[in-house]
């Protein structure tokens, strides 16, 4: 039984890795770099507060 489980672990590892790589390629080729790296720190804070007590 364990040799089969070992093989299953190799196969699943490959499938998860391939899925991530495929999605990564698809995402990077669909969206511009400007959109993907547009995240800026502190957006919510800038919108919701000015720290006036």
């Amino acid at each position, binding site marked *: 039984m364990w040799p089969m489980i070992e093989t299953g672990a190799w196969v699943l590892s490959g499938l998860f890795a391939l899925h991530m790589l495929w999605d990564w390629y698809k995402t990077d080729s669909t969206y511009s770099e400007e959109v993907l790296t*547009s995240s800026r720190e502190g*957006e919510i804070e800038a919108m919701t507060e000015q720290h006036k007590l």
Partner: protein
Amino acid sequence: MANTDITSKSMDGMGPHGTKVGLLRVLGPAHVWALGVGIVLVGEYMGWNFAVGKGGAYAALIACWFAGILYSCVAMIDSEVTSTVAAAGGQYTQAKHIVGPLMAFNVGLYLVFAYTMLEAGNAITLGYLISVAADMTGATEAIDQKPFIILSIVFLAWLNYRGVLATLTFNLIITAFAFVAILVLFVASAPWSEGTMLAHADLMSGQAALPYGWLGVLAAMHFGLWFYLGIEGTTQAAEEVRSPARSLPFGTLAGIMTLLIAATLTWYICVGYLPWEYLGDGVNGAVAPLFSAAQLTGSDALIVILGFGTLFATLASANGCINDASRAWFSMGRDHYLPQWFGAVHPVYRTPYRSIMFLVPIALIFALGAPLDQVITFSILSGLLGYTFMPINVILFRRKWPLDTIKRGYVHPFHPIPAITLIALCAITYFAVFLGYGTQLIAMVTFYIVVSLWFHFWRYRFVKRADQFTMPWPKPRGY
């Protein structure tokens, strides 16, 4: 805008600086708890017992409680600062705003190293656990651990890639199971009953009490950290919780309380079942002491529950480590401390997908190519360097922005006593680490000095200095 504050639950969304794709605010306090406790709880299942080997059962208890004080200070300090600096990156972002860029760069690296090494250590452990399960189920040949080590890292990376809500909900379920398993073992051991199998009086008397004296207590401090190492990771969820000012302190403080209970119960159960010589040998003796204790009870149900508890605690820790290391790496990329390419967010899953993917091969290299004790030591040392930064950070924070200038989600009590306590305990722990792992400590400090020089003389020229300070705080006092 002026009438709202950080505790607002009604305002959210992409903001004025041009964010088109950002991390998703979907988490609650329970997820924060699951992130913090999930990373740590594996330390209750294995690793802490090396403290027993260093100084005996009482030394491990003293180390457990001293480390508990250290981490209570960490949790309180972190809760106050991060309820105000509610952005991914946790302590890295705090350092950037409060201390300065060089400190921030170092803290960012401490975080990434601590979590990636811990993830690798967890994967190695998981491979070992599977091999034990194979032995127990009658496997005739030793199994190859590699596919299970690789599967654990790749599967959890895939889960993290697909979204933070599913990732931390998964962590919540398996962490809660692992914690309840410890409670079940304690209740099943019935220490209040005359028929209990716990034998503290026999196992802890005479020479077994403190076999190496007070020097053993000092040496045990190093592994006392293992009971709590990683609780500070809750701050990495700051940009993904719905209400940072409420959820982060609540989740973090509930987390440290959970760990104090789990650590004390774990110690109590294990030293009551196992002789200190066996318990303290985490390599050839009690590799997973709670599981060993369950085996001694003779109950099949307890063996299964604690077996799954060990497995789940290991998985939860690796899962939380991937989450935290990727957020720290992502934040450094977003600020140009590293190539901006790492600062990308997945437009559908809203996760830092490139940072998650980038750290997978690094974790695999350490998991497949480095010995477990070295991997764990580098994780502890990086964590310890991070804890040393925290008291400096909070003292500067209170001095530059006193309580009447910035509204906090949580204000930690008795300042500066927790900061002073934390720095004193860090100093003791450095000495303890130096006794056992002096070469690694020097090597690690040398490494951070070299990368600091690289950052100062080369990398910092790429940082957009005005862009990195994003919090709408007033000018610091004295500036």
